[in-house]
């Protein structure tokens, strides 16, 4: 008698299993804790006068975004260790913080347009300014920013614009603009930032559309289609590695952030001078700044505050700049100052912004869920090779 294990039995078994699950899983749900529910804004910070904890201080950041020397000097000053966990995009950072996939004390590079998610869900707490003795150093336009009234939750870290980084020895600096990315002469060595707001808004700006927060599905769709032209025309790469692929020569033209070309100074191979680097940014450009903020559930909140304070010390900020290349949001540190200090070569003057440029730049604002989905789907269609 054949009592074999047939397909029917597999399917039948799974159906019964499915029913069991439908009943059983809600019971399971009750077992887990409810920590992921959005509990609302946190309005109270830590108390004054607390002692720094024993550490280690866990910092959440982009890769290579703080000078190891600055980290060491902090470690020595307070006798603690600093651990850096990295992410590659702002959405990834929020997703990991929200789901509890990472457990950190300090979010070091929050984007301004998604800050509301961190605030409204109670993931970050207000800052206690008594620990921030250097708070007066913050650049004037960002002391009371539109995204964080009174600088309650955040301190700005770096300011940057979005433009085109390129090899000045292969591309004529005078003629660089968005069209350069669509120039088949550079096929195979061009890249676009792996960020859906940056990528799509760049396509919009190229066509003269300046609303980088548009809700118009037709505009978003067209931007995606324009980007899709690059797929076969340019064999475009989608990455945020321009800061080292340009000096190394693998990329000729890259959609980059302004600080990338300054970071690139450290990745120049032996025998190559900084003359080969170039940066162009439209006027006005998309301007952004990173924010430092302290997690509500931080185990080392005092250390987190002290670390922020450490970074807005003017000397530390300059030391940090020499490694990171991104302009710190410190009053008085602008292009002329940095060129005078020989920290920025003249040909990269445009990588550093003036207070006016900061004030007039286009900013990414928050989008509603539906609109965000439109942007993400348009980007997905581009990266899917569609």
């Amino acid at each position, binding site marked *: 008698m054949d009592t074999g294990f047939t397909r029917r039995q597999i399917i039948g078994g799974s159906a019964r299993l499915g029913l069991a*699950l439908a009943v059983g899983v809600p019971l399971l749900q009750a077992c887990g804790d409810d920590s992921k529910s959005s509990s609302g804004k946190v309005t109270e910070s830590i108390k004054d006068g607390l002692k720094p904890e024993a550490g280690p201080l866990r910092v959440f950041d982009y890769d290579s975004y703080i000078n190891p020397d600055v980290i060491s000097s902090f470690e020595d000053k307070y006798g603690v260790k600093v651990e850096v966990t990295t992410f590659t995009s702002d959405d990834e950072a929020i997703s990991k913080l929200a789901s509890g996939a990472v457990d950190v004390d300090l979010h070091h590079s929050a984007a301004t347009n998604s800050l509301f998610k961190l605030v409204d869900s109670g993931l970050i707490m207000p800052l206690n300014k008594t620990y921030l003795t250097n708070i007066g150093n913050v650049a004037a336009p960002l002391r009371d920013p539109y995204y964080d009234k009174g600088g309650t939750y955040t301190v700005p870290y770096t300011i940057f614009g979005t433009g085109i980084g390129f090899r000045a020895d292969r591309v004529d600096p005078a003629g660089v603009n968005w069209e350069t990315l669509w120039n088949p002469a550079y096929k195979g060595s061009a890249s676009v930032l792996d960020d859906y707001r940056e990528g799509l808004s760049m396509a919009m700006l190229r066509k003269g559309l300046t609303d980088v927060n548009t809700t118009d599905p037709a505009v978003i769709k067209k931007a995606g289609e324009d980007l899709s032209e690059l797929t076969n025309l340019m064999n475009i790469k989608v990455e945020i590695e321009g800061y080292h692929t340009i000096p190394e020569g693998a990329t000729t033209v890259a959609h980059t952030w302004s600080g990338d070309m300054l970071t690139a100074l450290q990745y120049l191979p032996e025998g190559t001078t900084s003359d080969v680097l170039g940066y162009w940014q439209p006027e006005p450009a998309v301007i952004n700044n990173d924010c430092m903020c302290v997690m509500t559930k931080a185990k080392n909140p005092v250390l987190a505050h002290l670390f922020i304070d450490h970074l807005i010390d003017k000397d530390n900020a300059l030391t940090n700049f020499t490694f990171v290349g991104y302009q710190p949001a410190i009053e008085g540190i602008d292009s002329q100052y940095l060129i005078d200090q020989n920290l920025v070569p003249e040909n990269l003057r445009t990588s550093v912004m003036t207070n006016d440029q900061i004030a007039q730049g286009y900013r990414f604002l928050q989008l509603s869920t539906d609109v965000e989905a439109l942007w993400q789907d348009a980007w997905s269609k581009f990266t899917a090779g569609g």
Partner: protein
Amino acid sequence: MANAAGAAPGGHRNAFWGFLSLPGVAWLAALFVVPFYAVAAVAFGKIDPILRTADPVWNPAQWDFSAMNRVIDRVLDPNDLGKTFLRTFAYVGGALALCCLIGYPVAYFVARHAGPKRGLFLALLVLPFWISYLMRMLAWVNLLQPDGYVNRIIGWLHLPGEHNWLNGDWPAVVLGLTYGYIPFFILPLYAALERLDKRLIEAGRDLGASPSRVFRHVTLPLSVPGLLAASVITVLPMFGDYYTNGFLTSGSPRTEMIGNQIEFYLRGTSQPQTGASLVLILSAMLLVLMAYYLVVTVRAQRAVAT
């Protein structure tokens, strides 16, 4: 297995073996079955209004299929995700073809002609399993650099086509997939070929057929089940691969596979339902292959046991 004692199912003795299996079964139920249900619950669920992270819905009666419908529309659109699915199928198919082309002769040789050196060859075939997949890919990244040895050899041999291999072209991905997964193909195929009834092959020879005719008309048809099983076991992981092309071509839309899109939606966006829906669609597509392999394996288990 021969039930020598003739014991009927149930009863004290049987329950003992059941209890022995219990830890494993309970584990898999909790950490394999429930997670799958969680995928469905997320795919047909909602999102947290502020954080825009997943908010799963556990009761099937309340499931919301709108995200899944949108995804299905995009999958059927040949200019959108449809292209990605087709490309994934093409890459997997190409890699499988290469695996067959390279792997069959190797498996056949080791199974039937290796003689006293068979142990050595088997060890060499098993060796890649002990080398980390990513280390093997890293090795290729080293070789395929613009100033790496592949380009050097091409230049030295004066062949045309010094190339930027890591630039985002499909050959790098197909070759990468082949290199990475071919050990999974060769070993099961070897095992199947090794078990072929040699008397049938010798009979063919004794009847006067030439070696190539014997191969075409006896050996090859007999090895088809083995080929199928090896193909399925190789192809299933390939479909979900996202790291091979991510590693070899660093973000080129022209080589994007389904795995990359799944990763994008689940890690970097506010639409986990889309990512979970894609996972369900991928699983549904592979279900036929998975079921085939399961049935074959169970039959083999019973055959070995008797």
